[in-house]
């Protein structure tokens, strides 16, 4: 029901080719996350699906029908904006009811649906208030309420949690995931935060400079990144990259190994290094170690480790977890 397909989609603003070419398939019911650094085109891609921007070339197919020329109002999609975009002069009730009013539904049907949505999102007590009287999290929920009440073919989220504080963000992440399980509707979610991507997605689309670098499930991207960019983008803290003699010893241009896959010992190991800054988070410790070869590596240690700034340590990467990259940054197999 809620399948979306992008065929050869391109977008240029004047001379700037924001999206050179994208082919993408989104199955019905999937939670797909577009992720990438600022300016990679993820929001533009979302807006092309929504119809808020015209494609420069290519087709947007929603539910098997070519929707490329269809105006946004007729695409039966719902969008949650980063700034929530609530109507300031209307009450919460009217905000949520607005899409139903636009499609010409009966007053009773509208009331039923608004009340149902409000109940799902814990907004029943706030229906009479105006947006300016609500907190950030509440406004967020009103925006979501307005989106779900239409029973759209798919939901589009444009960095919806960016404006919330850290604690609230974690809560809302869970709520949105829970919503997806409940409604089973396709959701396309844009974020620059790879933690959100990893925790919420069925499928992640990693974008850079308008190009799709890789599409896959979170763990697929984690274990088998196709290139240097994806390897460095997914996973926090970032994967360690080493070149020079060490990479040559592994017969490639660059090797990469994640902080959690590097063993550390005070007396023996493959590489020698000096401890720099240590970040103690309680459950983990992250050590920044300056290796003899010159690079600084991040190493994750389970629990606590008794080292001081300037101590000499030895690092050993897990052989099975070393990623090898060629001169173009592509992953070498084998």
């Amino acid at each position, binding site marked *: 029901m809620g399948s979306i397909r992008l065929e050869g989609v391109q977008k240029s603003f004047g001379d700037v080719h924001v999206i050179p070419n994208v082919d993408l398939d989104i199955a019905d019911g999937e939670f797909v996350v577009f992720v990438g650094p600022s300016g990679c085109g993820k929001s533009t891609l979302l807006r092309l699906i929504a*119809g*808020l*921007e*015209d494609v420069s070339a290519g087709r947007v197919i929603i539910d098997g029908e070519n929707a490329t020329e269809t*105006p946004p109002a007729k695409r039966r999609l719902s969008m949650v904006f980063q700034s929530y975009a609530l109507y300031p002069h209307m009450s919460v009730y009217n905000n949520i009811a607005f899409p139903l009013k636009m499609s010409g539904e009966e007053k009773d049907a509208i009331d039923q649906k608004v009340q149902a949505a409000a109940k799902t999102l814990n907004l029943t007590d706030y229906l009479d208030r105006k947006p300016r009287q609500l907190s950030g999290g509440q406004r967020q929920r009103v925006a979501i309420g307005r989106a779900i009440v239409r029973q759209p073919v798919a939901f589009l989220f444009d960095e919806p949690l960016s404006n919330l504080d850290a604690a609230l963000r974690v809560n809302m992440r869970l709520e949105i995931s829970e919503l997806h399980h409940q409604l089973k509707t396709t959701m396309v979610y844009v974020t620059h935060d790879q933690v959100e991507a990893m925790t919420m997605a069925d499928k992640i689309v990693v974008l850079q400079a308008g190009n799709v670098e890789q599409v896959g499930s979170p763990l697929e991207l984690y274990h088998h990144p196709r290139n240097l960019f994806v390897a460095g983008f997914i996973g926090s803290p970032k994967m360690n990259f080493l070149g020079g003699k060490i990479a040559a010893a592994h017969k490639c241009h660059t090797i990469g190994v994640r902080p959690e896959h590097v063993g550390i010992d005070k007396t023996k190991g493959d590489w020698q290094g000096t401890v720099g800054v240590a970040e103690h988070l309680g459950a983990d410790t992250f050590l920044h170690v300056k290796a003899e070869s010159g690079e600084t590596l991040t190493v994750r240690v389970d629990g606590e480790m008794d080292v001081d700034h300037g101590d000499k340590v030895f690092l050993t990467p897990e052989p099975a977890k070393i990623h090898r990259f060629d001169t173009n940054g592509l992953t070498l197999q084998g």
Partner: protein
Amino acid sequence: MATAHTRTLSRFMMSPAVLLLFLWMIVPLSMTLFFSFQRYNLLHPERQRFGGFFNYSFFVTDPAFFAAISNTLILVGGVLAITIIGGILLALLLDQPIFGQGIVRILFISPFFVMPTVSALVWKNMLMNPVFGIFANMSMGLGLKPIDWLADFPLLSIVIIVAWQWLPFATLILLTALQSLDEEQKEASEMDGANFANRFVFIVLPHLARAITVVILIETIFLLSVFAEILVTTNGGPGVQSTNLTFLIYGRALLNFDIGGASAGGVIAIILANIVAIFLMRMIGRNLEA
């Protein structure tokens, strides 16, 4: 934000405004230009004929023309001086903590909203009249001979009246600009040891420079066209002592019915205004980027 289907619609929605203003500009302007090269008087319309630069040379060699130009410059210059300096001082004053700020502001800005004909007549009769006016009464009270303002100092009187009307405008603009000055900048300079005079010269004045320029440009454009005040008080007189360029052209057109001459004068007025407008447009353009 714009998609194809909103774009054609938007072009359609802009067209009435653009079209109307375009016609409003082009038609009269080209007519003025045309008539300026014609010898045409409404009292003898049958004698209309091409005149080349006759009107221009006649206009420019008319002694009234130079009087009008110099009067215009004095009028604009005088009002600018009074309103800018006065405006800065009043803005500084209003920026201070005062009891009843709201009411004081209302008192300061009221003259701008009085229609020019009323202002002029009130000043002419009730203040400046040499027999019954307030100024006359004050002079007599001090034992001095009352001044016949409008007869003896016509241009100065007009300057005073117009400056009274425009002072609120300058004050309001400069006050707005003043209040947009970051409080922290002033505090930082105080920490650096600057006293009030220093702060004024090095921090406040440069910040106001932009607003002052805008006020000068906008006032100049409107002051070049001062008309009603002159019509209602001195009628340009005595002689041409208080005639500005606008009034001169008006007389030529609607009193002498000299269409050709008035049009030539009109072209000159437009050129003058354009010079100022170019500078103003550049300032606005810079701001539209923001």
